[in-house]
Structure formats: C-alpha cells, structure tokens
C-alpha cells in the first residue's frame, strides 16, 4: 500500500531496501492496512461514480426522450413545426437559432479576445497593469447569466436599436439586414453571447501566448522585426492551435448559454436570413416550456432537444479539450 504514497519516486525504479523495510513496518498493523486499502477503494469508487454521472445524464435524457424519438425519429431534426396543441414537434428553427447566434458570437469575440490576450500578455503595459487587467476581463465570466440578460433587456437593446435601424435603412438590400428590427433578435443575442464567451477566449489565448518561449520573440526582434511583425509572423502561428482550442471552447459555452439569450433573442421559432429578426434557441425553448410541459410527448420532444444540445456540446467540448491537450504535449 505504501507504493501509493511514494507515487512518483518509486514509479521508475525498484524499491530500495529502506522502502521495503518501511512498508513492512507499516504492514504490521492489520487494521492500518485494512483502513488504507478500504480508503483507496473508496476514493477510486467515488471517482468512478463522478465519471458515471456523465453517462447517467446522457442515459436519463435519452430514456425520457423516447416518446418523441419513436414518434418523430430523425425527421425531428428537419421539421419546422412546433405545435403544442396538435403535439407536432420539429427542432429545425431551434437548431438554426442556436448555431447562428453562436456563430455571430464567435465572429465578434475571437478578434476582441485575441486583442485582449495580446495586450495582457505582451509587453505593451507594465506588469502591474497587465495581470489585474487580465483578471478584470475574466471577471465578466463570473457575472451570472441572468444579470447579463437583465442588462441586455434594459441597456443593450436600447443602445443597439439605433444601430440596427441604421443597418436596416442602409443595407436592407442584403438578406442579413432585410427585416425591420424589433429590438430583441438574433444580432443582440449574438452580441450578448460574444460578451459572455470573450473571457474564455481571452484567458486561454493569453495562457497560450504566455507559454510561447521568449527565445522566439527575442530572435525575431533581433532579426529586425517590429513587435507586430513578431506577433503576426512568429507568435500567432506558434499559438494557433491553442487559440483555435479557445475558440472551440467558447463555441461550446455559446451553444449551451441559456438565460441571457432567452431574455434578448425574442423567442420566436422561425428561420429568417435576417439577423435583425427574432429567433429562438434550444436552451431558450427548454427554459421557457419545461415548467409548463404536461403531455408525455411534449416532455419527450423537449428531452429530445436537450439530447441534441447535449450531443452537440459534448462533441464541441471533446474537440476543444483535445485541441488544448495536443498543444500542451507539443511543449
């Protein structure tokens, strides 16, 4: 049992005499051995249970979604109808809203997050400004989603309405801005999501940039490159997989983000090319309808939606973790 304690030290080489004597002394108390072994099994068992939780979540949702899976099959993914009274359910508008709002969020948040990561990791500012600045940018991740939604309703929507009107007046020939803005809608939801995933992207990109060996910077500068030439030609190419991992992790967050989006997207299940139009997302419909769902088929359809979201975020998060892990192994 003492092998566990020595962990690293005894992993690579055979135990020395001293260690063997030590373990014999320890082994003399039978009760001790029993307690130690029991404890080892206990923590291993609990760790296993924690892990099983992930499968349990997937299984429960899959099981409860059965009525809808049997009734609609794969057609659920492509159907646009969502009628609670006639018990006809289709997921397409929600899938569309979830993907498009997350895409807007990524387009906005990646450049800003990357800029923030560069400003807080390179030597633009003295160190005593850099780290607190990074902390403050990360702090927005701590603000509860529902409060960001509250701010979205009362501050962001009024601020963005003139911008949306201007886009509609000047660019309504483009499908993206072809409908008159209501206030809430896809674009506002995308902006809110961008605000919420920005800390994730900035923090991970910053870690990645800080991990780039300073030799590379020095070498590039010594060859006569300016700071920005170094950033574009040396740092960013070196850090690209980490930044990509950060963006994918941000995407995972955006796909599952619920409250803030529910409060500003307008909750109207439609597929419209216009970003100024109302939309709906999977998390938002779950948040709005679960408390009132009574019929088994309605509950099943919501569970089916949750299953789609679970699968989607699982795939995205696994990809992100592998991305970041590949990077760590490369170093």
């Amino acid at each position, binding site marked *: 049992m003492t092998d566990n304690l020595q962990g690293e030290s005894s992993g690579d080489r055979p135990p020395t005499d001293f260690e063997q004597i030590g373990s014999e002394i320890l082994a003399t108390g039978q009760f001790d051995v029993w307690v130690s072994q029991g404890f080892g099994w206990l*923590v291993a068992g*609990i760790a296993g249970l924690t892990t099983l939780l992930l499968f349990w*979540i997937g299984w429960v949702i899959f099981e409860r979604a059965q009525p809808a899976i049997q009734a609609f099959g794969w057609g659920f993914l492509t159907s646009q109808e969502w009628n609670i009274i006639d018990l006809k359910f289709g997921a397409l508008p929600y899938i569309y809203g979830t993907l498009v709002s997350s895409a807007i969020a990524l387009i906005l948040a990646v450049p800003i997050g990357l800029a923030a990561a560069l400003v807080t990791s390179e030597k633009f500012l003295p160190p005593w400004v850099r780290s607190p600045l990074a902390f403050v940018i990360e702090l927005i991740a701590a603000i509860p989603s529902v*409060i960001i939604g509250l701010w979205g309703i009362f501050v962001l929507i009024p601020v963005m309405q003139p911008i949306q009107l201007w886009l509609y007046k000047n660019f309504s020939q483009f499908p993206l801005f072809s409908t008159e803005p209501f206030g809430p809608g896809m674009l506002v939801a995308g902006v809110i999501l961008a605000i919420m995933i920005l800390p994730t992207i900035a923090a991970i990109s910053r870690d990645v940039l800080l991990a780039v060996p300073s030799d590379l910077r020095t070498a590039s500068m010594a060859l006569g490159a300016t700071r920005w030439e170094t950033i574009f030609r040396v740092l960013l190419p070196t850090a690209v997989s980490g930044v990509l991992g950060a963006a994918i992790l941000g995407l995972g967050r955006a796909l599952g983000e619920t409250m803030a989006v529910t409060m500003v997207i307008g909750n109207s299940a439609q597929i419209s090319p216009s970003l100024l139009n109302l939309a709906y997302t999977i998390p938002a419909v779950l948040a709005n309808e679960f408390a009132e769902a009574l019929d088994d088929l309605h509950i099943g359809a919501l569970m089916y939606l949750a299953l789609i979201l679970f699968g989607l975020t699982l795939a995205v998060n696994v990809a992100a973790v592998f991305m970041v892990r590949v990077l760590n192994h490369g170093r």
Partner: protein
Amino acid sequence: MEDNFNPDLRDLISPLPLGRSLFSAGMTAIAFLLTGLALLPLLAILAKILIEGVPHLSWEVFTSLPAPVGSQGEPNGFANAILGTLIMVGIGAVLSIPIGVLTAIYLAEFGKGKPIASILRFMVTILSGVPSIVVGVFAYGVIVLTFKGFSALAGGFALAIVMLPVVTLATEEALKLVPTPQRLASAALGANPLQTTFRIVVATALPGITTGVLLAVARAAGETAPLIFTALFTQNWPEGLLKPAPSLSVLIYNYANSAFVEQNQMAWSASAILVGMVLLFNILSRLVINRRLEK
C-alpha cells in the same frame, strides 16, 4: 563622409520605414481599442447595478416577502428568495464538496500516473462543459418526474452537479501543489495513506480547496437555468425540501420580464446582492491564491 558608409550599415541606423512604423502604431491602437471594448460591458453592467440596484437596498428587502403588485406602503422584499438560494446552494454544497474532494484525492494521490486517472480527469473536464440547462433537464428527469413535483431538492441536486467539476478540478490543482517530500516525510513517520492524505496533504492544500469551494458556491448562487423548472418559484417562504422553492436568480428572471416598473426595480436590487456576493467570492479566492504563490 557619407560616401564612406556601407549602404547596409546605413539601413541599420536609419529609422524604421514609414509603412512599417505606421502598421505597428496602427495595430497597437486597434489592439487597445478592442481591449477597451472588452472591458466596456463589465463596467457598464457594474455601473448600472450601482445606479439602479444599490440605492434601493434597505432592511425591508432582506426581511420581507414580495408585496403584491400595486400595494402602496407595504414592506416589499425578497427574503424568501435569499433563503431559498441559501438552502439550495447548501444542498448543492453538501452533495458536491465531499464527492468532489474525494474524487480529486483519487485523481491527485491514489490514481496519479495511472491511465485510468487521466481518463477520469478528462470526463470531469467534459462534465464541466455540459450546459447548465442540460443539467437542469437531467434533474427534472431524475427528481421532478420521479417525485411528481417541482422541489428545492431537485434544484439543489442540479446545483450539486454544476458545482461538482468546479470543486474537483480546483481541489486536484491544490493537491498537486503539495510537495512530494511532505508525503514521504509523513509516510516515513509511519502514517498510513489515510492519515497522510488528510492530516498532511488535504490540510496543506486547504486554502486551494477553499478557493475552489468559494468559486463553486458563487457559480451555483447565480445559476438560473437549472432552477426554473426544477425548483420553480414561489412568492412565499420555502416550505420544505419537496416543495417548490424561490431563488434570487429566478426572481431576477421573472421580474426582468415583468411589465411593472417596481418589479424591474426589485430585479436590479436582487442583482446588486447577487453580483456583490459573486465578486466578493471571486476576489477572495484570488487573494487566497496570490498569498499561496507569494509564500
């Protein structure tokens, strides 16, 4: 004189060509502009809460139930939601802290270096990425449908699952920081793994574990999505673990969408309390970590 200069050397002492310096200055300006843009929402949210929420905090807010809309002069507060949040976060903490810490002990101590431990760690990381609304759906499927009713227990159960990976990963980080010689010294004095783990390793890592627990509690207190259809809401005091329970975050959600200005006002007051708590916990945990690094 000038003709003696080697043209290559002149390159070295001449200033940077205009194009390159303009590019550098321009990019610096853009980067700072974007960073300012990144700070703007946080400052705007905090400012709005300070202006709208903080001035309306009063003793009544913490001690009385929500008054019916339109009633004049009645004490109006959300003490029930504060209590409900405390109860459900409490359930979450009671369930998630022991399991999270023991899981972390396996990952950092007993399973260290084994392939199975890295698989388990991977699963816990993935669990932390599961959207909280999905966790809510799971709690609904497991507890609400089983007990045939919305309950504080279902809400607390959902919060426990949200907290679990936060506690586990933070505790593991804290345990990894404990130097191996301390474990060896303890074993050399004849302690068994149980004693070494709790008296030496966990005791040394306690500030780091506390940080993780603080962050998990702060996160759970602000969670709304897993509560709106597990714990639901009530205008009254929470009546028991198997009855619906109010919470600050769901109160903010309900009142944000309300047509009554006074309820919108209450949403901002509740936000002030929630944000104050969350920021306090985050800054506290930051200080604990910094103190450790300075040692």
